[in-house]
């Protein structure tokens, strides 16, 4: 278990140079409002400092954080340090787009205390990268990975996307092999998903998107896990691998263990341990609220004990730490557990129920399958 108990801090940088057709994270084109945004984020930080005085992880995501210029990144990190207290061992992560990577930028990040970068490669294959509408080429991705590997960060991670049209277990493995050749400590592999209001969802509705069916996606998933774990990684969450448990993303694990976190920036989500709230998913609304000195919260919910339990199941089955046996209750729960074991979806290890590799394929269904 990776629980430290200290909250995590997330900052959403809502700027992109171009929009990727599959992505539904909130962002606007261009960085012209970055200055106002930075001011607002630091204002929002101050508003929250009484509730969240101290963190042991900082995650700067987006959008495209690497679009911020040097002063802005420096201003952001220094500003946050001025408002909050960070532990000495704080994990500081920033997301990087391959075509923004330069030696200088990496050096700056290091000097600011960033100890973990996450490189949004998605694919090294020219056709695949084009299909995904990325700004970089396959070659640029390789170059970026090399620079990151040589920059001397304690850890770095590579993000990939799979489940692309025409992708085979074989071509997917080739991408994985190339990614691992740069020696990352962490690998995130997301199956391409058609999200709500994106160009891909419109394309899919018109029948113009030939994504693999679930049988094929299952094969890609299993092939991936087998290969990556064979290279010494642990498959610690459905879409995440780490070179040993010490390399898991401390920040992301907080989401799955109900550890409190504070999200700054438009569309960011926060959690206090019982209550969850989220900011306006609109830069103007966000800036407007903070300019007038108030929070930019759009909505919130307070979880009931039952909802907490359901989320523990949801998170638990998606991660290698599983679910505590005592979470299962109600009539017939022994039978249901036995059924899941027989199907090979879970194993019982000590006081915990742990999802197997096959079980990961149905992880979102397991909470239902163990429930009455």
């Amino acid at each position: 278990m990776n629980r430290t108990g200290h909250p995590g801090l997330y900052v959403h940088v809502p700027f992109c140079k171009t929009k990727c057709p599959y992505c539904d994270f909130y962002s606007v084109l261009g960085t012209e409002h970055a200055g106002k945004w930075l001011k607002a984020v630091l204002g929002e930080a101050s508003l929250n400092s009484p509730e969240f005085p101290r963190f042991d992880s900082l995650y700067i995501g987006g959008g495209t954080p690497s679009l911020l210029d040097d002063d802005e990144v420096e201003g952001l990190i220094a500003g946050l340090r001025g408002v909050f207290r960070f532990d000495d061992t704080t994990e500081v992560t920033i997301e990087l787009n391959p075509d923004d990577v330069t030696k200088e930028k990496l050096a700056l990040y290091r000097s600011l205390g960033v100890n973990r970068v996450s490189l949004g490669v998605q694919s090294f294959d020219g056709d695949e990268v084009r299909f995904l509408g990325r700004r970089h080429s396959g070659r640029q991705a390789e170059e970026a990975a090399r620079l990151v590997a040589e920059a001397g960060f304690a850890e770095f991670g590579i993000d990939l996307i799979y489940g692309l049209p025409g992708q085979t277990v074989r071509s997917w493995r080739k991408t994985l092999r190339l990614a691992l050749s740069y020696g990352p400590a962490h690998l995130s592999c997301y199956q391409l998903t058609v999200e709500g209001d994106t160009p891909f969802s419109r394309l899919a509705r018109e029948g113009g998107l030939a994504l693999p069916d679930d049988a094929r996606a299952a094969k890609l998933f299993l092939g991936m896990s087998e290969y990556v774990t064979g290279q010494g990684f642990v498959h610690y969450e459905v879409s995440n691998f780490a070179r040993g448990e010490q390399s898991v993303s401390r920040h992301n694990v907080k989401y799955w263990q109900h550890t409190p976190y504070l999200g700054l920036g438009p569309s960011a989500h926060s959690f206090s341990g019982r209550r969850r709230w989220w900011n306006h998913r609109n830069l103007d609304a966000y800036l407007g609220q903070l300019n007038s000195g108030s929070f930019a919260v759009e909505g919130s919910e307070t979880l009931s004990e039952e909802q907490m339990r359901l989320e523990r199941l949801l998170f638990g089955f998606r991660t290698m730490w599983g679910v505590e046996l005592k979470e299962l209750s109600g009539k017939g729960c022994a039978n249901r557990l036995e059924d899941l074991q027989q199907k090979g979806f879970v194993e019982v290890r000590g006081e915990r129920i742990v999802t197997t590799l096959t079980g990961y394929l149905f992880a979102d269904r397991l909470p239902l399958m163990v429930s009455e």
Partner: protein
Amino acid sequence: MKHIRNFSIIAHIDHGKSTLADRLIQYTKLVDDRQFRDQMLDTMDIERERGITIKSQTVDLPYVDDRGEEYELNLIDTPGHVDFSYEVSRALASCEGVLLLVDASQGVEAQTLGNLYAALEHNLVIIPVINKIDLPVADVGRVKTEIDNELGLDPDTAILCSAKDGTGIEDILRAIVDRIPPPTGDAEKPLTALIFDAHYDSFRGTIVSCRVFDGTVRQGDTIRLMSQGTTYRVEEVGVFRINREPQKELSAGEVGYIIAGIKTVSDTRIGETVTLDARPAPQPLPGFKDVKPVVFSSIYPIASDDYQSLLEALEKYKLNDASLVYQKDSSAALGQGFRCGYLGLLHLEIVQERLEREFDQSIIMTAPSVQYRFHLDDGTVLDVDNPLYYPDPGTIKSSEEPFIRASILIPERYVGAVMKLCMERRGVNSHMSYPTPGRVEITFDMPLAEVIFDFYDRLKSITQGYGSFDYELIDYRESSLVKLDILVNGEKVDALSILVHRDSARDRAVRICDRLKDEIPRQQFKIAIQGAIGGKIISRSTISAYRKDVTAKCYGGDITRKRKLLEKQKKGKKRMRIVGNVEIPQSAFLAALKTDDE
């Protein structure tokens, strides 16, 4: 007694009966305008929503004519649907006259005819009323011709009215007084009172609505229900003026209520005669009939633990609806439940809706069935309304199913389409008549089973709403019947079995398999759905397996959404039944019942 008039309003559904009743109530100032609401007599939500009357209600209207004479006009409201024709007939037996309501744009319809015949049987004075004359499409001339030709009534006696804007209401009230005779009867003779309705009241028990023909009944009397022989002590008698108003007595000619500690509505029978225990009438009033259900279907709780709660709900429901019959039933697929008998399909829908809405039950209903008759080789005769009890086909000598005579009234241009529909539904012995130019009355002998699904809806749709339909049960006729089983992954889902005519079996099987394919969610294994007669598979569909059901991301913004989805699925799961290893949602059972692709 000469200042009493007892009357009913009879009409085809939608011809404005409830609106007219509202207007009469308003005109006689029984309720002031502040308290008034539409469909005053229809107290159930479902009646107001559907604009139909399910339970009849009685109201005693005080009326003073222009000579200053005071009258009591007893309006006995009747349910407006063929399912309740016996209840209608008992209400009519309590009257001396009826208002026969005809819509000025729709004209005479099949049900109008059926209602007229019922009224004539009771020798009632009939006052034709042409309603909705305010409509731009009203055609009074044509409707008068129809009243003359199709109903054989004098069109000049018809009163023109618009219940909506109040035109003609005064004329109607005057006609009720002038044309309908006062009741006859002798208050000194032994008591005979006809029960034409009964309601359940949680404080007072059963409130019996009755018409006194002879004799008098007072508080403290001991009454006897003649067909059952049970006796009760009268706690209260009175009349209905929207609310109950207690009276000292009810005597010959009057309409009112009796409260006598009768526990449930089922302890009484519509059509039953009430007399005094101390001085009984020599014989009961004629026309009593124990109504038998004609449509059957089983009700199961969606969660099997809710059996007890469903039982309690049915018991409560039954307090106020004596025509529903039920007994325990059990299914391998659905567990413990109840086999229920209904007066018709509307009745079935009402029961289902009220159980869900008023009693908060989540239920699965199996396909409605009629009662089939099997003659076995050993000479026994078996009546079967539940496919579970279908006899070993090797022992069946012959089988029969109930037939109805359907009477359908339509504009001439729809004859072709309606004939086709009736033939598809195995209609025989068609007969056509032209009561007025441009209109056709078609009669068909048809199996009841072909009508109970969606015949009326189909008729409405192919005639663009102009077709009207009425039916009566006639007899049992020989028919080639088979039992169609539905198998899910090789396992028979007994609750989906139906008895069907051999010729329709394959069609039905294919449709049910297709429907289920759309309704049953994919699972981690392939699911085969088959239709079978005996051991022989006659249709098949397949639901492919799920191979992966996990989303890629689960970060800040995804969590709430995911949990909400899970909560929704969890709720849905409570509405699933597991058969073998397959989860079948409630919607699948319902979908399998529908015959057509709407």
